[in-house]
């Protein structure tokens, strides 16, 4: 996101959005939780009680206790430390997928919305075709071709999420392009790039943030599912989904192996959704209607 976007937005919609957002207690607390989680993940080497890879075969598959709050896994590794370190992978993977989706979806959305005509219909047909695929099946097919691995999995998820960004950009851009002030700007000879920067982008920033927040949750769920299947994060890397996938085998002996990473996913995704809802409710009435 460039500096210009924020400058263009600060006086208008975006600042209003933030002001309204501040009044929503649940959404603000969710944001605080996400910030704390990100900090804990970033500082994992210092805050984790144990080395996440340190094996101790004397304490295998222990239930949660005073020494190991979340218990230990099949190699005696501390589940709390592993959950903290896995948070890094899960959060980064979700961010990666959303960035890929933005990179694929936003530029063609702008083009389709502003240029219209034949360009628009070609882009929209391609989007329709992409949306006809059941998402997870397409992701699995792409991974089959590219090979299992976290980056490939996130590329697949990013491609799947991109049509929604594209449609959002197109719809918002079209609405803005019909405004009189854009027509005026065009008639006095402003270039398209200038119009995009000064008029279009500031108007799409707010709805885009709502979608980003929700899709970060969706991407996290998708990553968890794919890693659970063994198609995403590969050992020695471990995401929350991969932890649940490994813990699957010990479900009757050590349920804590799947309970804690699973709870971590659910709570984080819930927080992202609540933030998204909060942002949506903070949008101006005129934007919300679209």
């Amino acid at each position: 996101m460039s500096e210009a976007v924020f400058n263009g937005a600060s006086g208008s919609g975006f600042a209003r959005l933030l002001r309204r957002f501040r009044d929503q207690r649940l959404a603000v607390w969710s944001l605080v939780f996400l910030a704390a989680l990100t900090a804990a993940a970033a500082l994992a080497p210092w805050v984790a009680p144990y080395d996440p890879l340190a094996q101790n075969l004397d304490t295998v598959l222990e239930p949660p206790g005073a020494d190991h709050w979340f218990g230990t896994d099949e190699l005696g590794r501390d589940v709390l430390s592993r959950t903290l370190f896995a948070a890094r992978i899960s959060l980064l993977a979700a961010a990666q997928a959303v960035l890929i989706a933005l990179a694929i979806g936003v530029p063609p959305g702008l083009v389709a919305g502003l240029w219209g005509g034949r360009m628009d219909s070609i882009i929209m047909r391609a989007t329709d075709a992409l949306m006809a695929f059941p998402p997870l099946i397409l992701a699995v097919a792409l991974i089959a071709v590219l090979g299992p691995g976290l980056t490939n999995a996130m590329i697949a998820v990013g491609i799947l999420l991109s049509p929604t960004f594209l449609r959002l950009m197109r719809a918002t851009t079209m609405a803005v392009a019909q405004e009189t002030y854009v027509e005026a700007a065009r008639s006095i000879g402003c270039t398209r790039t200038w119009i995009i920067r000064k008029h279009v982008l500031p108007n799409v920033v707010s709805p885009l943030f709502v979608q980003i927040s929700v899709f970060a949750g969706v991407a996290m769920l998708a990553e968890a599912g794919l890693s659970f299947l063994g198609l995403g994060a590969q050992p020695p890397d471990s995401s929350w989904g991969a932890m649940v996938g490994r813990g699957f085998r010990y479900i009757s002996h050590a349920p804590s192996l799947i309970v804690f990473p699973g709870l971590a996913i659910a709570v984080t995704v819930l927080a992202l959704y609540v933030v998204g809802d909060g942002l949506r409710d903070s949008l101006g009435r005129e934007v919300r209607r679209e």
Partner: protein
Amino acid sequence: MIRFVLQRLLALIPLLLIVSLLVFSLVLLIPGDPAFQLAGEDATPEEVEAIREAMGMNDPVLVRYLRWLGGVLQGDLGTSLFSDQPVLDVIVERLPVTLSLALTAIIFSLAISIPAGVIAGTRPGSLADRLVTIGSSVGLAVPNFWLGLMLILMLAIWNPWFPATGYTALGDSLVGWWMHIVLPAFTLGLSASAILTRQLRGAMVDVMEQDYVRTARAKGLPYRKVVTKHALKNAAIPMVTILGLQTNSLLGGTIIVEQIFGMPGIGQLAVSSVFTRDLPMIQGVVIMAVFVAVLVNLLVDLSYGYFNPKVRPQ
């Protein structure tokens, strides 16, 4: 009506062509020499050449695409690189498992979301409404594989009420099928029911404020009848759209749910085909999934006529 259906079918042709192009292009995305990749690390040059020949990779891309498309149109989805069986046969054999799982999941999600949405939507702001709203948010955030494992833990291991894994065909034993399908279908249907509940709640709140609902109540129609006949039928229209969109997610979700519950369906086939690098099988699965999804969305379009006479074709 027949003309309307035909028009809709014709409109699908360009979409399906692009889809077929995308599915075919999967082969082109394989990094390096596809035949070499598909043959595996310790394949002899003869084996690689055999695969190249079998997939017709020595021909130009356009020729390969047209030949492949011609085969697909005649129901020939190719041959599995792993088991040498025709892809269509394997898929048709497994399709009933996936379809019965997805259909049961849809029925479960409707059975949850219609009462929940109506109760919350007719009493906005009440305790029940808030509970339903919170419940649907949680339902959306819980990963389905985790929910499935928790259900196995609680209802199959700690309390052995249901079998943890496996599948019994409906034709073999009704009770056996039901016992095997309950947990997977609930796992698969929960997120759909959360989305449907949110949608129906919002639509009910809107509809209940409409003039015709006020009129119906003012003329003394019983409340129950107002809700079911006037409000629910109108609020159901967007719900049907969402249900159509959810079909795609449900079909995708079967991949994970079938894996957890050890069900021999299409989803399990897709995952095992990734590990065996069985590309024709993957392509077949994707084509079949898109076909089912497109068919369902066509039915959804047609159902609008039932709910809203205004869009009924003349």
